[in-house]
């Protein structure tokens, strides 16, 4: 018995000894992160750098949520309770929701640049639109330098978005069919109210509860509220969340149909919404 205990102690001790470096991961990653201080961001004519200004701005505006190490463990992260208040992004993972690039790839610098100014609706991430463009470019470099992915991988190529066609009743009906076919309703509900049968079971990649987007609430979609933004959201997916990319399931033309159909759920004036009023548009039937 005692010999068995001793053996287990030795085994566990040895395991812990070899696991110890993992505990000092945070300390190691500080040096690791610092090694990427030469990270740059390129947005149009602007070049962003990790410099005194971006360090200052990050520590003034971002650190309380995203943490000193960009790991999403800032001092207030503990008070953010998902799904109501999503946890801050862990920049070290290099996984971002709002991209113009295919799922699984890194976002472009412009994607991160836009996200900083746009903020993320229904989260604690405000719209930091008061920054100068140079400040934002520098912050993009600063955000990137947390993740080794930006050293080893290149950003994905932005998807091609065909020109937006004219919205017609036929296109709205076609969008409804796409909505039914790819089973958007399972999470978003048949009327876009985020009450589909799977809604309450969703978790993000880290196992934390997450809520689907409620189209009827009046909110702006997280990654922008233009028709092109909505197109991008379901063709690129929101990485790190259960929202997949439908690039393989939806043809570009069909994607516009879906955008128009989704607009019929959303508050605010739109031609799709106006047309929907004149149509006998019933919610999709989940049990045909």
């Amino acid at each position, binding site marked *: 018995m005692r010999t068995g205990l*001793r053996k287990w102690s030795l085994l566990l001790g040895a395991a812990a000894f070899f696991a110890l470096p993992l505990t000092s991961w945070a300390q190691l990653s500080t040096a690791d992160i610092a090694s990427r201080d030469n990270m740059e961001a390129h947005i149009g004519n602007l070049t962003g750098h990790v410099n005194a200004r971006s360090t*200052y701005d990050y520590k*003034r*505006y971002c650190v309380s949520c995203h943490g000193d190490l960009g790991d999403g463990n800032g*001092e207030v992260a503990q008070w953010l309770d998902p799904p109501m208040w999503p946890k801050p992004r862990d920049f070290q993972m290099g996984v971002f929701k709002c991209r113009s690039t295919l799922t699984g790839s890194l976002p472009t610098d412009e994607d991160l640049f836009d996200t900083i100014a746009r*903020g993320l609706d229904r*989260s604690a991430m405000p719209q930091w639109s008061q920054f100068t*463009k140079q400040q934002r470019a520098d912050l993009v470099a600063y955000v990137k330098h947390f993740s080794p992915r930006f050293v080893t991988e290149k950003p994905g190529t932005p998807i091609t978005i065909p020109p937006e066609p004219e919205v017609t009743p036929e296109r709205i009906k076609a969008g409804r069919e796409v909505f039914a076919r790819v089973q958007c309703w399972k999470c978003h509900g048949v009327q876009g109210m985020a009450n589909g049968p799977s809604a309450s079971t969703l978790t993000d990649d880290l196992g934390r509860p997450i809520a689907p987007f409620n189209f009827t609430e009046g909110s702006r979609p997280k990654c922008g509220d233009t028709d092109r933004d909505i197109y991008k959201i379901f063709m690129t997916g929101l990485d790190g969340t259960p929202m997949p990319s439908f690039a393989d399931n939806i043809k570009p033309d069909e994607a516009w149909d879906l955008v128009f159909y989704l607009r019929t759920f959303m508050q605010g004036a739109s031609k799709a919404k106006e047309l929907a009023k004149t149509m006998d548009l019933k919610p999709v039937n989940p049990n045909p």
Partner: protein
Amino acid sequence: MHVLSRSSLRKVVRSAISLVSFTLLLAPFVLISAKPAKAIPAFARKYGLRCSACHETWPILNNFGLKFRDNGYQIMNDRDAPIWQNPSYWPATFRMTPIWHRFSNLQAVDTYTGASTANPYGTQAVERITSSGVDLSGLDFHTGGTLYKNISFYLLPSSDPTGAFHFETVMTRFDNILGSSWLNIKVGRFELNNLLSEKRAVGLTADGGIYQTYHFIPVGDGNIFGQMGDNQLGIEYVGHSYNDRTRVSAALLDSNDGNVNLTLGANSYSGFFTFDQAVDAGKWDVQRLGAYAFVGQAATYYKTSGGVPIAGSGVGNKGFSRIGVTTQFYFGPHFDVNFVTQHGEDNAWFGQGYGNAVATDGDGGVTCTGPTATTPGCPPNNTPGTTLSALARAPSWNGYTIEARYVYSPTLIFLGRYEAERMQQQATIGTPQNIGNINLWDFIARWNPFMSNRAGMALQAEYTVMHQVGTGPTVGLTTANLNDNEILLGTDFDF
């Protein structure tokens, strides 16, 4: 020397291995679970942002804070309404300022020289009086925030240094009407849309705690209504671009200087208009340039009953104006300069002391109830038949405030301010040109030992010097200049 036996040695080694194993097993959990102890004011607590997100240094707003305020205390994330908050959240903040304060000024002091039965105090001489001690510069109970999406309020009961309370701010806001950031309405008693906010000044001394430019009136002038630094009663329209780069406001105000109960010019109104535009200056940050105009009318004649002015009966309106430009220049993240100019003009009646016949204490209390003509110290009343002297004319002046801030970090700021007020035209022909001119210097070092999203505390050292020509004590026929200096050391905290 005690020598261990072989078996004892094995036991010790095994025990040591077990202890090390146990420690190694626990180490990851201890290291992973170790969190820094964190210490929230109302809005920071609501949104989980540090004070420094909205404040250049607390309480001065930065551009993000300005946008947050312009949006009706909302970050516009569709989770601003209280329904989304934890029910235990209460949007209240207390601000207190225990200080040590040294105040030194000139006063007319009895010398007892030549004292007699008829004149028991003798002659007077101008003498510097200096007093010091632990003091309070005020106590504020702030509560404000959203009532519903795009509907918010602010309530601020505040005490003056004597401990007397009044409602500094009471207002309701309706923002983003029709979904437009250009359509926001504010009703109640509120601070005017001054780019350089007096209510957010870090100065705590008596002279340095206000902006002289916002309160200046010529010596003997009776227009207490054009006080840009005082919170005013009225309704204000504010519009701004989505990113708050362009801001415009227009307020219709009672000419009451914020006094409640319609005690003063109940039948007169004034307007306060502002416009400012910010530009992206790259690495130099955002630069802002604006202008304001405060124009209005106020009563000079209050009807009387038995000679006593009747509150709220003001008629005989005369005009006044204050116009100027404001700038906010940032030179990178650590240094900024704020500049406000003013050109002011009052009607000649105000210049002769008319306008405040009911004489209030500034918070609605009436301090002069005697018949105007017979009670010394009561302001004059423009009763029927009153005429102005041939020497009377409309006073005018120019002034400016320049405030430079070195923000080493959000927790450490050094601030220097200079204010100059210069008479352009005196109210009475023959009055020396410089009577009433002001020079003020204020130097502040303010350090926040901690500033979290839960609470903030600042340790402040401040030195203020103020000179005003011809408003010091009068001895015989000679009036000295006002010559104050103040030293303040203290704490300023909120939670």
